[in-house]
């Protein structure tokens, strides 16, 4: 194991990484919902 592996992760960097991941996941979810509602509306109107 080298010196780099033993360095503890910076808590602030870790915090930023987790928050960024959560924001991305939420944005993706909201976008998916918008797309889903769009297609449901099209399907209901066509059907």
């Amino acid at each position, binding site marked *: 194991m080298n010196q780099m592996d033993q360095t503890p992760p910076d*808590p602030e960097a*870790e*915090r930023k990484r*987790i*928050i960024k*991941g*959560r924001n991305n*996941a939420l944005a993706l979810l909201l976008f998916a919902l918008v797309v*889903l509602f769009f*297609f*449901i509306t*099209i*399907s*209901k109107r066509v*059907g």
Partner: protein
Amino acid sequence: MSTASAQPIPLPTDWRDFLSLTKPRVMSLVIFTGLCGLLAAPVSVDPILGFTAILCIALGAGGSAALNQWWEADLDAKMKRTANRPLPAGRMERSSARDFGVILSVLSVLILGLACGWLAAGVLAFSIFYYAVIYTIWLKPRTPQNIVIGGGAGAFPPMIGWIAATGEITLMPVLLFAIIFFWTPPHFWALALFVETDYAAAGIPMMPVVAGHQSTRRQILVYAVLLLPIALAPFLLGLAGWFYGISALLLGAMFLLLSLKVATFRTAQNDADMRAERRLFAFSVLYLFALFAALVADRFIAG
């Protein structure tokens, strides 16, 4: 320096922990049986609405799983199998799990209602209530029959899939419900026999803990015997074709044989490694996948 400043501020919860709250592995079976219910229905389903129905069944299952983990966080901490879940491991606030579960549940019911009708949405809402309240909060800690009653929660997805496709409750979705309902006790009791120590540590009255191994093994056989005619019923009542009938018969015979081994065949070696119970548990998963796949295949064979 104050004491507070010496304590590290806890990290926010990672999105993967929210995902794990939904029990993705259990969800795969829910999605599969829900999809089978949808595809086996004798109507053609709009692909977008069909996809939405399955998504909502999955979201509802995820929401109720999150509520289950919110309620059982203390019990999960006592079992090796569940101790690393986000709540017992301290990676998430309990209220976050509760809110996440409620949001997913409400969202799934609303979207399903708007897309596929309020009957399917109503059954989905009831299934979430059944799992989160009737099973998790009320019966699981109180009765060794918890698995029998809890099996109802897992039996809803194919029924919801069928109702989402057809818009009505007929005999067939009730039979699909019954198949999973009678399949659940032998499936979970086989598992509970070889992880008994864990359940005992958490104080959950699982059948092997309360009634003992022999009684549990006999009850496994009883449910396996009941499951055979119920699984054959769609064929016998003319609701499914010969392909499904033959599949149900062969799979049911194998299930019965393995249950019989669990109930009767006992040696010191077998008791030690629980080989028969492990085999039955593994086959029970295959059984359900194969039976529902046969139902869908039969529908396409029949046209």
